[in-house]
């Protein structure tokens, strides 16, 4: 394991500290319990937005704290959901009285810890709504599992719900648009290589030189199945097809196409995947109205990518285009 770290146990502490130093104009970092808050918080009258989860997915979630997106992010240990004693003060810090929305990726740990924090916050008089993100079509038979995982769609939920909160939507409206994004977004990922959790010191799984793992999550956990290496177009089809069919996309639909890098894949390769996906959608009569390409929700240094498609309506498009000013996503300001 070769990493630019000092001590496996200090990775999150030091990284978040550096993040706070680099973006002191946008965020405030509280070290213990650890959470990241938008510079001006709470924003009077605004619904607060809090998300969080294990670390190792950077820029998610800390990189999305700022105007038009999250009010606070709560980083757990690497690939480990944060705890209620972090989530609660983050929630209180961004509560202006208009209520707070928790955006939670659907993993048992995240759900349980946010659930506890929400109860505690409500006991302190803060109204909480929870938007659960579960866009990963790789999880099959989700009735008999912990359910679908929250992956790439999370970024889009955070952006669009964040814009709704910023324009002054009330608590229920912000939660509703978050849910609507979640209902209209699907994702699937592939790993060409595994990643190494710093405290584990060895890769999460082993892939042969000619193997890839289809249906990967974002925690270095193995995926749906392992297949021999294919070319980029073939892999793209394997990711895009289930996304399109699960979403029930039809000719005439407008979508946002999001090709995400898992952390160790060159941008040039992401554009090769984007090219194929955009061509295939166009062939099906689907209009790619918005796009996003890059490392936005990662698994440390994993090589691979995920494809996320969001079926847009006019309101979602407007909210997507609305100004955002965070360390990792910025436009219109």
């Amino acid at each position: 394991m070769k990493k630019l770290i000092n001590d496996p146990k200090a990775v999150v502490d030091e990284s978040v500290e550096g993040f706070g130093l680099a973006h002191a104009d946008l965020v405030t970092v509280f070290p213990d319990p650890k959470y990241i808050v938008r510079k001006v918080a709470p924003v009077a009258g605004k619904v607060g937005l809090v998300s969080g989860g294990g670390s190792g997915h950077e820029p998610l979630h800390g990189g999305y704290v700022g105007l038009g997106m999250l009010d606070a992010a709560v980083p757990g240990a690497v690939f480990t959901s944060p705890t209620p004693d972090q989530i609660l003060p983050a929630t209180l810090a961004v509560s202006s009285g208009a209520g707070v929305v928790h955006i939670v990726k659907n993993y048992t740990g995240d759900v349980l810890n946010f659930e506890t924090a929400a109860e505690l916050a409500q006991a302190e008089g803060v109204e909480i709504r929870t938007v659960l993100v579960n866009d990963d079509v790789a999880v099959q038979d989700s009735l008999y599992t912990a359910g679908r995982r929250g992956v790439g769609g999370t970024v889009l939920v955070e952006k669009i719900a964040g814009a709704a909160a910023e324009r002054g939507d009330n608590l229920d409206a912000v939660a509703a648009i978050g849910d609507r994004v979640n209902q209209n977004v699907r994702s699937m990922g592939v790993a060409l290589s595994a990643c190494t959790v710093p405290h584990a010191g060895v890769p999460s799984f082993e892939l042969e030189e000619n193997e890839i793992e289809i249906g990967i999550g974002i925690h270095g956990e193995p995926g749906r199945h392992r297949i021999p290496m294919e070319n980029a177009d073939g892999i793209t089809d394997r990711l895009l097809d289930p996304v399109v069919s699960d979403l029930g996309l039809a000719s005439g639909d407008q979508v946002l196409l999001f090709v995400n890098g898992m952390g160790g894949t060159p941008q040039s390769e992401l554009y090769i995947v984007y090219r194929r996906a955009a061509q295939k959608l166009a062939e099906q009569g689907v209009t790619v109205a918005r796009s996003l390409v890059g490392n936005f929700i990662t698994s440390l240094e994993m090589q691979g990518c995920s494809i996320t498609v969001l079926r847009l309506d006019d309101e979602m498009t407007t909210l997507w285009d609305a100004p955002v000013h965070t360390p990792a996503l910025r436009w219109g300001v």
Partner: protein
Amino acid sequence: MGLDVGWAVRWLTLSAQAMAEHRVELIELDRPIGDSDHGENMDRGFKAVMDKLAETPPETPAAALKLTAMTLMSKVGGAAGPLYGTAFLRAATALGEASDVDAATLAAALQAARDGIVARGKAESGDKTMVDAWTPAIEAAAAAAGDGDGDVRKVLLAAAEAAEAGAVSTDPMLARKGRASYLGERSIGHRDPGAVSSALILRAAAGAAE
């Protein structure tokens, strides 16, 4: 003779030792069917419990368990943090103010712990989770407590042994809860890390009563 606060502190101390010793093993178990953090999480959590116990020495067994619950809840994270947190909290509540825990109360507290895990995690037996260690453990504990001689050590030994067997029994199971469930068929043939850490904790409870 029942179990006092000294036992509770020894239990937690032995648990912390077990988590440190088995840290790598638990990480390794969490690797093929999870995300390689269970040992790290549990070790971090129980180290924090040790710090808390030193800071505010508890007066009753229940106080020791409650402090453990709050610390695990706030330091472990992941699925295991809230589950173990709830387990210790419910056990503490079941113990009440007693400074000396008898066999029946002990069995009831273990049952409360298991029920807490089920209430939070909604897992059933056979889902390949820590519940598969806890359910046989509380059944064995209840049977041992019902024997009549009131020996708390027998209750704890019975629970530990059953939990260990329960952990082994997860090997062939297909996971339906937690991260391992994403793997479907591929989860078969691996032991559930949470079931193993549960067995370690229950073995520590028995060790503390020696």
